[in-house]
């Protein structure tokens, strides 16, 4: 039996694995992808201080540290189920083998939310994350000229990455409004969410908008005055007043139909125009990929500030189930540095719960370090992420009190079970 199993070789999982192994535990990391690094692999952007964040290099550092500490990493191995038995042993099921452990960390990261647009099943339509991986990880151009549907932090960052790779981005625009696109199709809500992400990477857009946005009335004006042809961000037109209402093509993407929209996102008839493109990216934002925590039976809370449903957990990264931990984007959508800091904390908590003494202070410092990393993050996916973190902490405390009320014992090791 392995002391610790980590599912997910992203920044959270690799950091946790390295720390736990450095404390003397034997650790197995399982990931379904063919390379270690998770979503960190595709990241490439300039930090506010002018330095570059290169995901491939950062992933290699994390991987080397884990490997040196003796961590075993099993790639191309999807986990399709996890289960616990009464004696506190977790079984981890993959197609070929079943692994067992007493300490299981789920660090499966995030998934991309879909934005349905007519024609989106044509070849040449992909998620914006797929375009990022093709370009930055596999070094293959997704096409020569693309249109990105969905305006958010992630799509703005990836638009710039495409441009760096010499791929033309014809437009960054909204999806047409329907009952599934909702907020991502509302110019006012989109502008508002972009503007609150103060130190977000595409700062020219923020600077442009913030002049208009002193109060709510101005917010409306901000959208109304938004130039019909968009503002340019690194030469890419950002179009808050245009929406893609259809993707067209005979056998593959040939272009999109775009139309002007009102400040509420309603299409203005007669303004439709065709824009040629050979690929289209769908950018609906990210949500925590928590499916394994769900089959394990963790209680969940829907917290928009964290990007969706998150499993109940405490600051030490324990869930309510004995021996089950979570770290990284499964606990809420944030940048890679925060995910890594959470992983470090989880690794230390697992070491302590495995009987290694003298870690209390180190765990406290690790928790502090998550907060500091968050405060200094150069990329922020939700403006109210701190509020989201407070909500889940309150829910944890409520849960602990409820258990006390029933006479069950609650320890810092979350032995209460559930």
């Amino acid at each position: 039996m392995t002391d610790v199993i980590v599912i997910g070789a992203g920044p959270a999982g690799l950091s946790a694995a390295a720390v736990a192994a450095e404390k003397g535990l034997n650790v197995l990391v399982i990931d379904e992808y063919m390379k270690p690094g998770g979503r960190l692999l595709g990241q490439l952007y300039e930090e506010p201080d002018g330095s570059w964040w290169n995901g491939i290099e950062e992933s290699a550092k994390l991987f080397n540290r884990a490997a040196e500490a003796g961590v075993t990493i099993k790639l191309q191995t999807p986990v399709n189920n996890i289960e616990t038995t009464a004696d506190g042993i977790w079984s981890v099921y993959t197609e070929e083998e079943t692994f067992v452990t007493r300490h299981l960390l789920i660090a499966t990261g995030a998934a991309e939310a879909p934005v349905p647009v007519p024609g989106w099943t044509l070849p040449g339509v992909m998620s914006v994350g797929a375009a990022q991986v093709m370009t930055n990880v596999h070094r293959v151009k997704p096409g020569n000229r693309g249109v990105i549907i969905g305006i958010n932090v992630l799509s703005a960052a990836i638009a710039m990455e495409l441009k760096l790779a010499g791929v033309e981005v014809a437009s960054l625009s909204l999806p047409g409004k329907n009952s599934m696109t909702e907020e991502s199709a509302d110019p006012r809500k989109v502008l508002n969410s972009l503007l609150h992400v103060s130190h977000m990477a595409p700062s020219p857009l923020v600077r442009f908008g913030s002049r208009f946005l002193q109060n709510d009335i101005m917010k409306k004006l901000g959208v109304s005055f938004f130039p019909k042809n968009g503002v340019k961000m690194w030469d890419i037109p950002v179009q808050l007043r245009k929406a893609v209402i259809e993707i067209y093509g005979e056998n593959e993407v040939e272009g999109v139909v775009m139309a002007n929209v009102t400040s509420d996102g309603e299409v203005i008839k007669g303004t439709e125009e065709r824009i040629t493109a050979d690929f289209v990216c769908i950018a609906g934002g990210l949500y925590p990929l928590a499916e394994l925590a769900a089959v394990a039976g963790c209680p969940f809370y829907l917290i928009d500030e964290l990007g969706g449903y998150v499993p109940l957990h405490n600051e030490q990264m324990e869930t309510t189930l004995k021996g089950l931990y979570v770290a990284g984007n499964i606990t809420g959508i944030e940048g890679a540095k925060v995910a890594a800091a959470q992983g470090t904390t989880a690794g230390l908590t697992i070491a302590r719960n495995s009987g290694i003494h003298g870690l209390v202070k180190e765990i406290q410092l690790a928790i502090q370090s998550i907060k500091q990393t968050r405060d200094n993050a150069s990329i922020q996916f939700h403006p109210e992420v701190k509020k989201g973190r407070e909500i889940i902490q309150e829910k944890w405390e409520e849960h602990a009190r409820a258990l006390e009320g029933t006479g069950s014992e609650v320890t810092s090791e979350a032995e209460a079970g559930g």
Partner: protein
Amino acid sequence: MTDFEMIICRCEEVTYGELIKTAEEFNCTARELKLRTRAGMGYCGGRTCRPMVDKAARGPEISKDTEITLKYQPPLRPISFGRLGGKEK
């Protein structure tokens, strides 16, 4: 192509129109919508359409904030029939 004809669940080929009409007609929850239309019940296990089926649903969910509306079921990834049956390749 209109919104109504666009495919939402690719595995089971369920359109936006079908989902919206079913949700309206039966005022149904995400789970009922899934069972009525088969959206999310195909090969991939709803990996793409799950959030959209959730959004199309109308009926009152049981404690929507604390419970995931559409249940996750193992296996979370496709497995070959041979493996499932326990038969050697």
